[in-house]
């Protein structure tokens, strides 16, 4: 193997990775802003039904864009990056499923448990994913 053949500049590779991460974070922030704005608009403003429907669906556009950027970025990950991503997602799934089950059971039991909106579930899943990634980056085989 010729180790010196066509070696790209490490700084350029690092810069490209940073650019992809920045783009995904910007899209995440945009999704959150659109979501909050849309939620406020549909609950506080008196708008005709077609406009309300359009606003209700509007957060899905930046979110889909974000998901697409995430999917494209996944292709650039190496084996360690994929493992971290998969373990983060697996941790989020494992943390979310029992919590949702307990929530549904407490609602069915009608014991006065507080109602939780989808926003809380989404934030909970994101936090669980971040915790899963944190564990995956630190655990030893």
């Amino acid at each position, binding site marked *: *193997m010729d*180790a010196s053949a066509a*070696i*790209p*500049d*490490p*700084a350029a*590779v*690092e810069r490209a*990775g940073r650019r992809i991460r920045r783009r995904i974070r910007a899209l995440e922030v945009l999704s959150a802003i659109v979501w909050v704005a849309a939620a406020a608009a549909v609950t506080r403003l008196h708008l005709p039904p077609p406009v309300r429907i359009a606003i209700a669906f509007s957060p899905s556009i930046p979110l889909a864009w974000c998901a697409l950027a995430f999917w494209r970025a996944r292709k650039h*990950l*190496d*084996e*360690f*990056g994929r*493992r971290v991503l998969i373990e983060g997602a697996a941790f989020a799934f494992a943390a979310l499923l029992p919590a949702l089950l307990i929530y549904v059971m407490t609602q069915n039991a009608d014991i006065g448990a507080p109602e939780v909106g989808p926003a809380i579930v989404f934030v909970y899943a994101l936090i669980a994913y971040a915790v899963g990634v944190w564990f995956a*980056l*630190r*655990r*030893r*085989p």
Partner: protein
Amino acid sequence: MKNRLRVLRAEREWSQGDLAVRLGVSRQTVNAVETGKYDPSLPLAFKIARLFEKSIEEVFQFEAGAANGASAPGEQ
């Protein structure tokens, strides 16, 4: 699993980023392998060994009992 990646890299005065680019992986992956947080796949282990012109055993040393009590070849 122990490895001599840091030593081999230092001998060639390569940074983690330099090695990562040569291997086609991220700097985080090189760091995780060096610190023992990640055992590379067989293809990546071969790639590392070939890059340093060593055998896999010269770069990576299996620690008996580290992986589910499995024993190294020849150990009984």
